[in-house]
């Protein structure tokens, strides 16, 4: 990519210019959207847009190695780590809109504007020359040049980053570790617990209760309420009062045909024999 974009002809210059402006506007818009949207997952997607745009900028500036590291390490690894943690602590975690500190947003906006003006003034006053023609910094020599620099002049910082990565991995292990407060149940205890619970077989597969309501597989209890075994507690917690209620087919027919007198009769006739079977 950098070979094509770094060539000096007119059409390439126009292409680079247009790519820069499209991606610059896109990345600034994505960054703004990142601090404006409320869902954390949408923030992660916007951050991915910014990071991919930055990778293209690196490729356009004669840094193909950094462009690929940006995509592989940042967009691939770091952002996926963010998404994993988002899944762990709740995908629907939203920011509250209430300002806990009065006038915090106004103050933050003013500080940002002031800081931005100072930065732009500094950039304007600095003697920033044009880009040097791509000789060392692009193409195949980019990789070899970077390798030479890392393993000669920057070899000590390189070793230090190795130590830093090991320390970070150890720190993450220590922080994520959880002490067991009760002894781990043995196989014998697990077997005894299963025997005592009365359910020797494992739970039925998903979808079974959607199609069946039988005495050996009671989706509804004898009084008509849905059984705890048939509707997952996660579902009822998520939906609250709107948790999916199982309505047996005969019940629907009975209601439309002749009222609800058939249903208790039906249940009482089915249930005792079912219990006796199981």
């Amino acid at each position, binding site marked *: 990519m950098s070979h094509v974009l770094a060539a000096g002809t007119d059409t390439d210059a126009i292409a680079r210019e247009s790519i*820069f402006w499209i991606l*610059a506007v896109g*990345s*600034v818009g994505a*960054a703004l959207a*990142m*601090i404006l949207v409320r869902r*954390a997952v949408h923030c*992660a997607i916007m951050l991915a847009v*910014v990071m991919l745009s*930055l990778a293209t*900028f*690196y490729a*356009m*500036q*004669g*840094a193909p190695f*950094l462009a690929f*590291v*940006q995509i592989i*390490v*940042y967009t691939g690894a*770091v952002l996926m*780590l*963010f998404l994993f*943690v*988002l899944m*762990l*602590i709740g995908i629907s*975690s939203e*920011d*509250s809109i209430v300002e806990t500190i009065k006038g*915090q947003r106004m103050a*933050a*906006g003013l500080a*940002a504007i002031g*800081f*931005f003006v100072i*930065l*732009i003034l500094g*950039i304007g006053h600095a003697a*920033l*020359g*044009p*880009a*040097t023609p791509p*000789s060392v*910094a692009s193409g195949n020599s*980019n990789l070899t*040049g970077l390798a030479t620099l*890392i393993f000669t002049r920057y070899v000590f*910082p390189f070793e230090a980053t190795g130590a830093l990565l090991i*320390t*970070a*991995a150890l*720190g*993450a292990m220590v*922080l*994520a570790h*959880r002490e067991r407060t009760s002894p781990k149940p043995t196989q014998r205890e697990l077997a005894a617990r299963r025997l005592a619970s009365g359910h020797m077989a494992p739970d039925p597969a998903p979808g079974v209760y959607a199609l069946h309501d039988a005495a050996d597989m009671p989706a509804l209890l004898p009084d008509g309420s849905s059984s705890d075994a048939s509707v997952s507690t996660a579902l009822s917690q998520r939906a609250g009062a709107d948790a999916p209620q199982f309505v047996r087919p005969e019940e629907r027919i009975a209601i439309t045909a002749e009222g609800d007198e058939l249903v208790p009769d039906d249940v009482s006739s089915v249930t005792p024999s079912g219990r006796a079977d199981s």
Partner: protein
Amino acid sequence: MSPVHYVALSAILFVIGGVGVLVRRNAIVVFMCIELMLNACNLAFVAFANMHGNLDGQVIAFFVMVVAAAEVVVGLAILMAIYRARRSASVDDANLLKW
């Protein structure tokens, strides 16, 4: 494109990331904004390397990426520990040291 454009773009992205750190209260989003600021710095480093025609800026950007990866690992582990203890990822709720 001259390096000035890239440096100005990196300044804009850095300021937006800073506003996000100041304003947002979900700790994960705060982390993402810190990542945005680090990326903006990387863009400036690469632009300066391009301007001077040597590779030192790219090496520094590479080291920034390594440090950012380590920082994310430890930061997210801390966040998980806080969430496990307090059932919340909001930075307002971790206020035990506040006087």
